[in-house]
């Protein structure tokens, strides 16, 4: 039977760990709420943007823009991988990295691939897999700012327009609902469509009288507005990727820490049982010794 004192010591240390994981869970919950609020605030912009796009489309404009063109050869691609700076969030980083590595191999067959990574975990993960990382971004925390994402987006736009790159893939964790996030690869350049939010949100806004063409006057021209809409919607899409990744990270951490706390509780329960049993058998042993001593004296 194990030593009662050693068991007690172990139980104490597990109790301490439980306190820590419990606190981390609470912190992750608070951060998740904040990140969620930000993501919600961004949807206001995307919905209005979708409305502008829908109104433009109604004007019967021929939608063409260099960013929307698919190139015949996509030999030079860039892959942007979004992970967290910190660990202890379950499979969050692992899932993204696994998907990114697969995609990297696929892209390598078509030509050269440059890997950009946001988050310490991606950088160290790629180092381990011996995949060179071109640009590493470490300054994104749980509240990515548009002013931080904008230069990166602009840089990709410039590279794409000057034909330095032909394709941009973003690997991140998409947030679908609180109980569902999944790692996905999204091709942002060339842009496949302009609708930013889900198509459902576009339809009701296009509900002015049928048959009537666009009621809007476009200043200076619809073409000029389109010229601005396309890069902006790319930036917003990229920003949304960052926001989604931040929200998903906090959820993943929340879930992981909740699991850890529960496991610690289970372990404490088990250890307490073993400890009590050890203690009892120790006492029994001591009593037996005392009785044995008494009997030896009396005889």
């Amino acid at each position, binding site marked *: 039977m194990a030593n009662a004192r050693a068991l007690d010591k172990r139980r104490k240390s597990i109790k301490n760990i439980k306190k820590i994981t419990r606190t981390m869970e609470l912190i992750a919950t608070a951060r998740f709420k904040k990140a969620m609020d*930000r993501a919600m*605030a*961004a949807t*206001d*912009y995307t919905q*209005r*943007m979708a*409305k*502008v796009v829908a*109104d*433009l489309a109604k004007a019967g404009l021929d939608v063409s823009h260099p960013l929307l063109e698919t190139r015949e050869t996509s030999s030079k691609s860039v892959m942007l991988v979004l992970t967290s700076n910190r660990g202890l969030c379950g499979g969050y980083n692992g899932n993204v990295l696994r998907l990114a590595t697969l995609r990297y191999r696929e892209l390598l067959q078509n030509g050269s691939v440059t890997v950009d990574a946001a988050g310490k975990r991606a950088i160290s993960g790629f180092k381990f897999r011996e995949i060179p990382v071109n640009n590493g971004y470490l300054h994104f925390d749980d509240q990515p*700012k*548009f*002013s931080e994402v*904008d*230069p990166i987006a*602009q*840089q990709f736009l*410039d*590279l794409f*327009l*000057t034909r*330095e790159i032909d394709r941009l893939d973003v690997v991140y964790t998409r947030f679908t609902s609180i109980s569902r996030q999944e790692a996905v690869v999204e091709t942002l350049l060339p842009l496949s469509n302009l609708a930013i939010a889900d198509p459902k949100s576009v339809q009701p806004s296009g509900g002015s009288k049928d048959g009537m063409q666009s*009621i*809007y*006057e*476009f*200043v*200076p021209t619809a073409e*000029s*507005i389109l*010229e*601005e*809409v396309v890069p*902006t919607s790319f*930036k*917003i899409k990229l*920003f949304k990727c960052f926001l989604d990744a931040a929200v998903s990270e906090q959820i993943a951490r929340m879930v992981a820490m909740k699991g850890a706390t529960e496991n610690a509780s289970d372990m404490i329960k088990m250890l307490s049982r073993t400890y009590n049993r050890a203690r009892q058998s120790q006492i029994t042993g001591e009593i037996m010794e005392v009785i044995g001593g008494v009997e030896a004296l009396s005889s």
Partner: protein
Amino acid sequence: MAELKLMVVTPEQTLLDCQSESVIVPLIDGLMGFLPGHAPMIGRLGPGVMKVQQGGTTKRYFLEGGFVQMDRNVLSVLTNIAIPVEQLKVADLQARLKTLDRETPATPAEKLAHQRQLSQTKAMLRAASVSAA
């Protein structure tokens, strides 16, 4: 007095959601004023200062690019950057302009980025020095 509803939205937040008597926005090819009941229109914004008239006071914001949409007396301004003009400091901007002038971009992509920063700083400087005067 008739008023129009003004919404200024950036990707991060809704900056303004208020009633206003008149709004002047910087379009890409010049200023445009909006009074209540303006006809529906969509415009492309350029860098410059937006003036919002509200009960006798005028608030100024620096905007950089984006769109403006007027629909049913609601004026939505979608922009990447919206900063109250008072927060722009002439000295800071001049210092930034100087450092930008010294940089020499190498690749074509960097050149584009450099030009954009330069014109942005210049536009901010213009906005800040007009309001300071």
